[in-house]
C-alpha cells in the first residue's frame, strides 16, 4: 500500500540514489487514499473513533471551561486536528515516545493520559498532570511516553533527535515521534534537527500538522514553498510525503509505515498532514483572518469525525455501537470535569520544589 507522494513529471533522487517525488496537491493525495481498500480491522476502527471523539469532547470542554473562566492563562486547541493525534496514538507502540507542542492536549490524550489530568492542568488544579506547575502548554506524562509539550517553536525537534540517539546507542526499539505545526518549518531548529536526524539515521518521525495558518498569518504568505514540510524534505534527502490529516485511517497507515521504517533502522521520516484548526491560534484569537466560508467548508466536508463516522457505517458498524462510543466519551469528559472542579488548588508547598534534583530550589549554602 502506498500513501503520500503523487508523482510529478521528474523524480528527484536522494543521496542513496533512490527516486522520490515532490509533493502534489492534497486533493489528489486524498482521493487516492480514500480509494484504498478497507484494511483497518474493526477493533482498531472502534479504538480510533473513540480517540477522535474523546479528544473532540475534551477540547470542546476546555473551550467551554475557558468561557466560564475556569481555564486561566492560555490554551491552544486541536479542534479539527484530532485525526493526526488519534492516528499516531493508535499506531505507536507503548514504549514509543511523543514530543508535542503547546498545542498538545490531543497528543497527550491519545497516549492514554486520563482526561481529568489534562483538564485539571488547564484549570490549575492539584489533580492536574503537573499539579499546575506546567500548565496547558507543557503537558507531560513520562509514564505514558509523553516526554513533554514544548512551547518554544521548534525546540523539541532536536530533543526528539537526542531521544532517538539514545535508542540507537542503547539498541532499544522505541521510536521518538515529534509533532509540530506548519509554522515550525520556518525556524532554524527544524532544519538543524532534520539534517542531524538524517546524517545520524535516527529512529525519529517528524509529524507536521499543516493547519494552513502559522498563528494568525496564512502559512503560504510567509513560506517559500507550497508544502512547508514536504517540499523541504528533499533538502534532507527524505521522501516528500503529504497525507490527508482529516482521514484517521490514512494517518494511521502513514504513521505505521514511518514507525516501522524507523524501528527497522531505516532512519527518520518527515510527513506533512493537511488539516484545519477550527478555533483560533490561542484562546485570545477569534480567527477573523480566515476567508468567509472556509471554516464551514472544513466542518461540513472535511471533518475528521464525520468522515470516520460515515466510513464506519459504510463498513457495517452499527449506528448504536457508534452512538455508544459518543455517549461514553461525553460521560467521561463530564466525569473528568467534575473531578477537576472538586480538586483544590495546588498546595503552596510545591511552589519551590523540583527546581533541582534534590527536590528543592537551594542555589547556595
Amino acid at each position, binding site marked *: 500500500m502506498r500513501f503520500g507522494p503523487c508523482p510529478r513529471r521528474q523524480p528527484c533522487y536522494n543521496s542513496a540514489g533512490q527516486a522520490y517525488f515532490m509533493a502534489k496537491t492534497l486533493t489528489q493525495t486524498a482521493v487516492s487514499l480514500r480509494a484504498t481498500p478497507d484494511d483497518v480491522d474493526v477493533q482498531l476502527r472502534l479504538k480510533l473513533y473513540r480517540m477522535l471523539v474523546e479528544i473532540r469532547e475534551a477540547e470542546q470542554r476546555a473551550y467551554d471551561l475557558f468561557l466560564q473562566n475556569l481555564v486561566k492563562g492560555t490554551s491552544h486547541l486541536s479542534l479539527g486536528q484530532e485525526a493526526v493525534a488519534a492516528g499516531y496514538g493508535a499506531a505507536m507502540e507503548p514504549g514509543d515516545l511523543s514530543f508535542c507542542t503547546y498545542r498538545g492536549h490531543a497528543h497527550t490524550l491519545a497516549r492514554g493520559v486520563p482526561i481529568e489530568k489534562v483538564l485539571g492542568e488547564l484549570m490549575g488544579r492539584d489533580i492536574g498532570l503537573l499539579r499546575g506547575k506546567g500548565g496547558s502548554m*507543557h503537558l507531560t506524562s*513520562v509514564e505514558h511516553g509523553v516526554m*513533554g509539550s514544548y512551547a518554544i517553536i521548534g525546540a523539541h525537534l532536536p530533543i526528539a533527535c537526542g531521544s532517538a540517539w539514545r535508542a540507537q546507542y542503547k539498541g532499544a526499539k522505541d521510536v521518538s515521534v515529534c509533532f509540530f505545526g506548519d509554522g515550525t518549518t520556518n525556524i532554524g531548529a527544524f532544519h538543524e534537527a532534520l539534517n542531524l536526524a538524517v546524517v545520524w539515521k535516527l529512529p525519529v518521525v517528524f509529524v507536521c500538522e499543516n493547519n494552513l495558518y502559522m498563528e494568525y498569518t496564512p502559512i503560504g504568505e510567509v513560506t517559500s514553498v507550497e508544502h512547508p514540510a514536504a517540499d523541504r524534505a528533499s533538502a534532507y534527502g527524505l521522501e516528500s510525503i503529504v497525507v490527508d490529516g482529516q482521514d484517521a485511517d490514512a494517518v494511521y497507515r502513514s504513521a505505521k509505515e514511518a514507525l516501522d521504517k524507523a524501528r527497522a533502522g531505516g532512519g527518520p521520516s518527515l510527513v506533512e498532514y493537511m488539516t484545519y484548526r477550527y478555533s483560533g491560534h490561542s484562546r485570545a484569537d477569534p480567527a477573523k483572518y480566515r476567508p468567509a466560508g472556509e471554516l464551514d467548508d472544513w466542518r461540513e466536508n472535511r471533518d475528521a469525525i464525520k468522515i470516520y463516522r460515515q466510513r464506519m457505517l459504510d463498513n457495517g458498524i452499527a449506528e448504536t455501537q457508534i452512538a455508544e462510543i459518543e455517549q461514553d466519551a461525553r460521560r467521561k469528559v463530564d466525569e473528568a470535569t467534575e473531578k477537576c472542579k472538586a480538586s483544590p488548588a495546588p498546595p503552596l508547598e510545591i511552589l519551590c520544589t523540583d527546581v533541582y534534583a534534590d527536590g528543592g530550589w537551594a542555589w*547556595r549554602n
Partner: protein
Amino acid sequence: MAELTYRDAVARGIAQEMSRDADVVFLGEDVAKAGGVFKATVGLLEQFGPLRVRDTPISEQAILGAAMGAAMTGLKPIAEIMFSDFIAVCFDYLANEFSKSRYMTNGQVKCPLVVRTGNGGGSRFGAQHSQSVENWCMMIPGLKVVAPSTPRDVIGLLAAAVRDPDPVIFFEHKSLYATKGEVEDGEIVDALGTAKIVRAGSDATILALALMVPRALAAAEKLKAEHGIDCEVIDVRSLVPLDTQTILRSVASTHRLFTVEENPRLCGWGAELVSIVADEAFYHLDGPPVRITTPHIPLPAADFLEDMAMPTVDRICGTVRRSLQA
C-alpha cells in the same frame, strides 16, 4: 602525581567518566576526529568509538537539543559548545528547556547533562569569541554553573558535573588551556558548590573565577611583597551552587571584600556576591566592597586594547592598595 595541562585534563576528565559509565556520551563540533578545536578532546574517539563520541554539524541548537533528549531518556551526555559566545544561538535550551523541565513537569523529566564550553578572553579573538558569559547562565533557575581554574579542578569538577543529576554548564577558560598543574594519579572527583581558599590572608578577601584566579594570586603575592598587604584569595569555582559560607567566613575575618571578574560590569557575578555579603556580613566590613571588572564594553581584538580591558595583576594590586589605604 604528574604535571598536566588544563587542555589534557579535559580529555582525561571526560575519559575518566566515560570509562566508568557507559551512559556517558559526548557530542560537539569537531570534537571526535579532530580532537576539538582547542585539542582538548584528543584520543576520545579512538578510545570510545563513534557512537559515543560524535562529531555534529554546526548546529548548536541540535547539539544542546540532542543532549537534552538523550539525557531525559537515560543517557548522561556531555555536549561541547565550541566558544561560549555561541551559547547565544542555542540559549533556548539553557534558558527555557533543560533548566526548567524538571520544575515544569513536577519532577517527571530529569536532564543530567553537562555543557562544556570555551569561555573568556585573552586570545585576541574579538568581541564574539572572547566573552566571559558565566553570568548569562547564573541567573537561570535549574542550571548549575561551574568554572575551574586548574587542571586538577578541571578533572574533579567535570567528574562532579557528569555525576550530578542536574544540568551543569562547565566553563573552561580558553587562556588556561596551555597552563600546567600537578594532578594526582587515579580517579579524581570533586564536589560542586565548594569554593576553595587558594591563598590564606588576613587583610582582604579577593574572590576570583577561572583566569582571574591566577591573576588574583599573582596580585596577592605582589601586594604582600611590595606593600605588606596580606590578601586571602578564594577561587569561587562554582557559581551555582554557590559556597557562600566560605566567602562569608573569609569576609568576617579579613573585613574587606574584592571581586575580580572578567565579565562586563553590569550584572556580573560579583554583583550578586557583593549583595549577599552586604545582606549577611555588613557589620563585618571595614570598607565598601569593590568590584574589579572588565568595563561595560564588547571586548576588542587588538592585544593592547584587550589587555587594557580585562582585569590585570597591576589593576588588581592598584585597586586593592588604594582601597585599603583610603
